[in-house]
């Protein structure tokens, strides 16, 4: 019996034993509310009177409606995105009218800070400070996005410049070489609004993603929405005109990744190629994971590798005979084939698998077939797909004999060493004591705990992506 099945059965058992008593509960709450109302009723007018007095007092104190408007009317809306996303509404005097946490991470950043009436500079200082302390901005992840929304273009641009300068100086005070992406939004596009709503992201991040996708057609919106600003920034790095409406200072940090040289080495070793030609490496992303895409050729084949940028694991390897390119009609040949991406998609859809491991796609031009092999959840899959029509010629699924042994070293997980080093790097600690690293496969998390210099550190790290989910530091 699998755990999912057990979970379903337990839920059913307890659900059936607890009959639906909703109506009874509802009438009890209504009864309570009625009693509560009777108690309060006599005070109702008193409350209204208090409110009216307070409002009048405020008007007199502030010198009338004009002052009220200057203090409480929202002039610009500023989105700050790192991974935490925060929205600040400011008045004409750049004082905060409202601060909203747009995601869970942002709640952690804002905590119980109350910014109402506070100058934007002071609020930024506190917010950036909290992001640095809590590990959202550091040497490994140094990018931040600022979006200023104001109908007055000139005012939006002034505010944008002021904020970028302020953030740059705040980051350098913390000894972080930051990369600040910034934009003004005078007219929100409907597309960005829809995107923001659909994926629960800020309008600013939605506009950034639309700009990136417009200039980099190979990247897909749904692959970008879950990425942090640093990860999106990494993907656009080194490409000309990869951003048009977004301004940028500095460069995205790639220190968390294995590096292009290492990625090349891994791919060449796997392919057993010593002297490749046309070797190219660039960043790419799939399923929320940042990859190095490594392409090269030798005398016989063209190779295409996708390598997990954090762990160095090979996610996909693709190899294609080059012979036919040298024939006289390569173009007509080429255009008749479905892409290797498409072949992969056909096989995965058929198998109902989303994140396979050990995926290999090979095009056999002589037989006009793609062969797609991969492993998933203890099974090996083997597909043959017609390279012109995309029709599945053969599909096989059999138990993977190596599964148990390979599971512990499965290419889907980062190693416990890696998890440890991510936590230690983040904490800036070299020789901790009482270090414990645990892999929780069901929750797909490493828990890393250690002590250093009178503090206890506690990290939760995504076991596939290496992303820090939670970091805590408290007095031992």
């Amino acid at each position: 019996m699998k755990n999912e099945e057990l979970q379903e059965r337990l839920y059913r058992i307890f659900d059936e034993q607890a009959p639906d008593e909703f109506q009874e509960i509802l009438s009890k709450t209504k009864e309570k509310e009625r009693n509560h109302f009777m108690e309060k009723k006599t005070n109702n007018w008193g409350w209204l009177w208090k409110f009216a007095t307070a409002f009048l007092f405020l008007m007199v104190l502030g010198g009338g409606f004009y002052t009220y408007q200057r203090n409480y009317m929202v002039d610009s809306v500023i989105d700050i995105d790192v991974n935490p996303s925060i929205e600040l509404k400011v008045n004409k005097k750049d004082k905060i009218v409202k601060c909203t946490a747009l995601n869970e991470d942002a709640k952690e950043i804002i905590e119980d800070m109350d910014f109402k009436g506070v100058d934007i500079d002071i609020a930024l200082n506190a917010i950036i400070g909290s992001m640095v302390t809590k590990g959202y901005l550091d040497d490994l992840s140094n990018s931040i996005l600022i979006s200023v929304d104001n109908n007055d273009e000139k005012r939006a641009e002034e505010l944008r410049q002021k904020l970028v300068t302020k953030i740059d100086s705040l980051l350098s005070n913390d000894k972080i070489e930051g990369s600040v992406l910034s934009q003004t939004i005078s007219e929100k596009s409907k597309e960005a609004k829809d995107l923001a709503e659909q994926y629960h992201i800020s309008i600013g991040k939605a506009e950034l993603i639309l700009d990136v996708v417009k200039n980099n057609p190979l990247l897909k919106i749904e692959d970008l929405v879950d990425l942090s600003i640093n990860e999106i920034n990494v993907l656009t790095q080194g490409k000309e005109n990869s951003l048009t409406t977004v301004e940028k200072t500095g460069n995205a940090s790639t220190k968390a990744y294995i590096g292009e040289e290492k990625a090349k080495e891994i791919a060449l070793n796997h392919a057993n190629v010593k002297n490749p030609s046309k070797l190219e490496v660039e960043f790419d992303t799939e399923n929320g994971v940042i990859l190095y895409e490594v392409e090269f050729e030798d005398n016989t084949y063209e190779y295409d590798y996708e390598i997990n940028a954090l762990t160095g694991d090979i996610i996909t390897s693709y190899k294609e005979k080059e012979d036919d390119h040298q024939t006289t009609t390569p173009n007509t040949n080429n255009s008749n084939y479905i892409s290797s991406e498409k072949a992969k998609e056909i096989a995965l859809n058929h198998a109902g698998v989303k994140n396979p491991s050990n995926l290999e796609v090979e095009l056999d031009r002589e037989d006009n077939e793609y062969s797609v092999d991969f492993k998933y959840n203890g099974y090996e899959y083997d597909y043959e797909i017609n390279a012109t029509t995309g029709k599945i010629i053969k599909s096989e699924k059999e138990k993977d004999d190596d599964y148990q042994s390979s599971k512990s070293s499965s290419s889907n997980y980062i190693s416990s060493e890696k998890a440890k080093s991510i936590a230690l790097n983040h904490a800036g600690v070299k020789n901790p004591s009482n270090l414990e690293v645990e892999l929780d496969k069901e929750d797909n998390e490493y828990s890393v705990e250690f002590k250093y210099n009178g503090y206890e550190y506690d990290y939760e790290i995504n076991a596939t992506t290496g992303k820090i989910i939670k970091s805590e530091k408290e007095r031992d």
Partner: protein
Amino acid sequence: MSPSTLSDSSLEQLLLNIKQEDSFHELYLLLKAPIYGYSLTILKNREDALDNVQDVFITLYNQIDTYDQKNKPMNWIFTITKNKAISKLRKQKPTIDIEEYRETPIKFAKEEDRVLFNILMEQLSEEERTIILLHLLWGFKHREIADILNSKVSTILSKYHRAIKKLKEMEANR
């Protein structure tokens, strides 16, 4: 669908709209199983456990203003469930023991469910049962369970795996 399949934000949405009857009802249908399961583990008596389910939902409804959005919704709901159950436990007659489970005849949709239920309630320790229910019914991660039970993740993980193994083996041998 169990709460573990629902994201924190969708659950929070339901919770924040609890004053609307539709949301309240949806929340109730979704959560009565985990709340009942945990209450039964603590109170060891079906009637008291069902009473506790009612009390918990009335409290959620009346005290929604005190819910702090910095916390995860399930943590808040669990704290209320646990506190209510413990205060009920104090008022219980001291004679109640594990046999109470059997006193009220319970209908099961499938005979195999009865077997599983009896093993869970009678053969596993209260701690093992709590860990299994918190993970599988409440959707808490092992790390969160470690926080709730004031223990270490490694301890919870090994106890959880041992308990699941025991449960499966016992069921297979019946």
